[in-house]
Each structure stands twice: as structure tokens, then as C-alpha cells.
């Protein structure tokens, strides 16, 4: 027992520091992916609820493709495909050296596309809850489409979509563990290195699981806080 504490500690021979750096990478990646995924997801949802059939088709294709692919495969497609793509562009520009793309950026884009395809569904169902009268009221007092969207629809939309988005955040947090497969030093990778060196696999992978649980619990607190804050500005019924 004391041995395990020393192994997980921050002292000499302890892996605490490297695991802590892994936590930092995981949290940074998830936080960096979130705005990207939310923004794309919102616009895809806008496309899906539009009356223009071509826009609907294009948005639905996006969701179908990125919800149908395994997350790990999307990650590899973005990572290796991006590498080949960047290499080709480099060759066109006359650069023949090897170009490596950053695994953090690749992970961010891959997880962002997956997140956004799920988020678009959450936003879409939130859009459907908001009655038409809200738009018409906005136009009636002379607001433009953009103003109506920003000042009337969006605040309500976020409040309705919040529980669904909270779930997606928890899924995103778990999905970040996949980036260890393309060599990013996240929680799972750092604990895997520690497990291989110390031969204490159960201890370290168990630690990784506990860290993810704790991150999930902390997120739930934050999400609940945001939920309460958002509910306060809602209409009292």
C-alpha cells in the first residue's frame, strides 16, 4: 500500500508529476475542442432546420457521416489523412521535406467533428421547442434575422440545450482518452508509460479510471452551476 502511494506520489520515483501533466493535456484538449464543436454544431443545426432542401441535405450528410464512423477511425483519418494532405500541399508549394502535423490539433479537429455532429442534434431539438411566435415577435418589432437570432432565440436555445450539451461534454471528456493512440501524452498515455515501467498495470490504469471519474464529477458540479444560473434568467411559470 505504501509502495503504491510512493509510486503515485510526486517525490523521487513517483509518477504524480507526469500523470498531472497528462491531466492538463486531457483537460486542455477537451476545453479547446468544446468551442469548435459547439460552433460547428450550431451552424449544422441551423442548416438542418432551414427550409432550403439543399442546405438540409448538406447538414444531414455531415451528421450521418461523422456519427456513423467510430471515433478512433475519425481520429486516424484526420491524423494520417491530414498528414498526407499537408504533405501534398507542401509538395505543390515546392517543399519536399517531411511534415508532421500536431497530434493535439488533429485530436482537436477529430473530436470536434464528432462532438459537433452530436451537438447539432441537441441544438436541433432545442430549436424545435422554441415556438415560431418568438421569431415573428422579433421581426414585428423590427429586428433583423441576425438580431432575432442573437438576442431572442439564442439565449432560450442555450437554456433548453444545456442538459444535452452537458452530457455531450462528459462524452467528450471520455473520448479524449483515444488521442493516446496517436501519441498525445494525455492521462491514459502517461499512466500506460508508468504501468509499463513499474509493472503495476492495475494500479496505474485504475488511477486513470479514478481520475476520469473525478473529472466527470467536477464537470457535473460546474454543469449544475451553469444550469441553475441559466434557469434564473428563464421565465417563471
Amino acid at each position, binding site marked *: 500500500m505504501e509502495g503504491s502511494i510512493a509510486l503515485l506520489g510526486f517525490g523521487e520515483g513517483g509518477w504524480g508529476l507526469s500523470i498531472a501533466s497528462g491531466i492538463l493535456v486531457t483537460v486542455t484538449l477537451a476545453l479547446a475542442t468544446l468551442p469548435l464543436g459547439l460552433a460547428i454544431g450550431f451552424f449544422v443545426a441551423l442548416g438542418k432546420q432551414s427550409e*432550403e432542401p439543399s*442546405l438540409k441535405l448538406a447538414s444531414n450528410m455531415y451528421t450521418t457521416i461523422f456519427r456513423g464512423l*467510430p471515433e*478512433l477511425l475519425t481520429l486516424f483519418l484526420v491524423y494520417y489523412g491530414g498528414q498526407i494532405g499537408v504533405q501534398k500541399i507542401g509538395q505543390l508549394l515546392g517543399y519536399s521535406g517531411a511534415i508532421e502535423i500536431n497530434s493535439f490539433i488533429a485530436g482537436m479537429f477529430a473530436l470536434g467533428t464528432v462532438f459537433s455532429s452530436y451537438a447539432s442534434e441537441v441544438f436541433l431539438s432545442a430549436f424545435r421547442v422554441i415556438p415560431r411566435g418568438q421569431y415573428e415577435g422579433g421581426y414585428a418589432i423590427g429586428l433583423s434575422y441576425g438580431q432575432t437570432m442573437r438576442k431572442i432565440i439564442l439565449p432560450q436555445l442555450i437554456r433548453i440545450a444545456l442538459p444535452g450539451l452537458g452530457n455531450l461534454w462528459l462524452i467528450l471528456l471520455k473520448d479524449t482518452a483515444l488521442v493516446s493512440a496517436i501519441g498525445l501524452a494525455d492521462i491514459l498515455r502517461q499512466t500506460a508509460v508508468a504501468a509499463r515501467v513499474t509493472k503495476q498495470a*492495475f494500479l496505474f490504469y*485504475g488511477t486513470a*479510471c479514478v481520475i476520469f471519474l473525478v473529472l466527470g*464529477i467536477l464537470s457535473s458540479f460546474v454543469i449544475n452551476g451553469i444550469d441553475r444560473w441559466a434557469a434564473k434568467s428563464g421565465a417563471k411559470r
Partner: protein
Amino acid sequence: MTDNVISPAAATVRRPPSPPKPWTKPRITGYVLVGLWTALIVGLVYYLFRAWDRELVDKYAPTYLSGLWTTISLVLASVIIGAVLSVPVALGRMSKNRIISSIAYFYVYFFRGTPLIAQVFLIYYGLGSFSKELQAVGLWGFFRDAWYCALLSFALNTAAYQAEILRGAIRSVSVGQWEGAASLGIPKFVTFRKIILPQALIVALRPYGNELILMIKGSAIVALISVYDLMGYTKLAYSRTFDFQTYLWTAIIYLLLVEALRHLWDWMESRITRHLIR
């Protein structure tokens, strides 16, 4: 006066002209986006056509097929085992006994709160480090095999999710159904099997389908513990040939599989809810 009389023939002919379709901003955006998708798909088909390599296909197509079979059998087996395991977990979650319900709660919380890949590693590498103890109990043969470890972790994982689906579905059937059956003198077990379950399964069908699709997608990670499923053979083929089409074919196979399942589920849902359509 005769001007006002419109002959019936003219009335059918003279329709108002359909309003002109202006090139609004959404329409232009939509056409551009559909154009981009079309270009992407045409480009993909062209690339796969150009890159078609008889030798490569002959060499790796059979491995892809066997990998696909591994994926499907792994998912089916774990979903079925998970369904069996989920029943006691769901019952435990609904139990009035504090201890039982909190054990079930922690089970569900753990498996839903941690990444599947970490669970697979924990069981494969983690339990693998207790090889001496496992040998002593005679379970080493089971835990040495990556396929069985993947099966075990998937079954435990999906059991947690399925328990929540089952619980939610049983909860969704109103208490009046239980009471009605009780007032007719139907025993509790028969009530559950013949009255509650059929109604609960309608609610549960869609989440079960989603869970199946999530498992198929999630099963790709077994490639990381050296199980040769579809993803595993793809990784192998890519590491040998560095040909990107290996990944593209896999993407197409997974997409077809998931889409087929999704449509099957839509069909099943419309079929079993026929009596609910008014």
C-alpha cells in the same frame, strides 16, 4: 356579363404561376455545400478507382472480411451477455434495499463515467499483471487472450448502459398498470413479463439500437490491444503499405454497417408501434 363566366375547362388550366425561386443566401450556401460534398464524394470514388490495386485487394480483402466478422461477433456476444447482466443491475438500481441499490449505482457510475478504452486496458493489462494469482485459480487462459478480455470489458460496460435503459423503460410504464394487474389477481412475475415488459420494450427499442451502434463504433478500440477486428486489420494493412485507401475502405464499411442498422431500427420501430398510430 359573359366576361365573368369562366368556363370549367379554363378554370382548371389557369393556375396561378408558381412563385419565382429567388437566389437567397441560404439557397446559395446550400448549393455550395452540396456541391462541396458531391466534389468530395466524386473525389473519393475517383481516388479509390485510381488507387485500385489488384494485389492489395487480393491480399487484404479476406483479412478485412474476417476482421468484420470479429467485430460483429464481439459486439453481438458482448451485447447479449450485457443484456443478461443488465437485468440484475437494473433490479438492483430499483431495489428498496439501500446497500443493493448503492452497489448497483456505483457499478453503473463507474462504467459510464470512465472511458471504455481505460476499462479495456484495466482488464487486459491490469488483470494481466496478476498472472500468478490467475494461474493459481485457473483463469489465466481467459485473461491471457485479448479477445476474451475485450469481450468481458465490453459486456460489463454495456451492461451498465443497458441497465439504465431498462430501468428508464420500466419506470416509463405507469404504476396503474401494476395496480390494474394486481387487482385482477395476476401474480407479480406474470404482470412483469406479460404487461410491463411489452410496453417497456417499445420505449427501450430506440435506446437499445443506439447502444448497439455505440458498441460497434466503440469496438474499434480493441485494435489497440492487438485484437484483429476490422480496425485491427486496417491498422496492420496501413502499417505495411502506407496506403491511405486502407482507412477509407474501413470508413465505408463502418458507415454502411451503422446506416444499415439505423434503417433496420427505424423499420422495426414503425412496425411494432403500428397500433399506436392514430
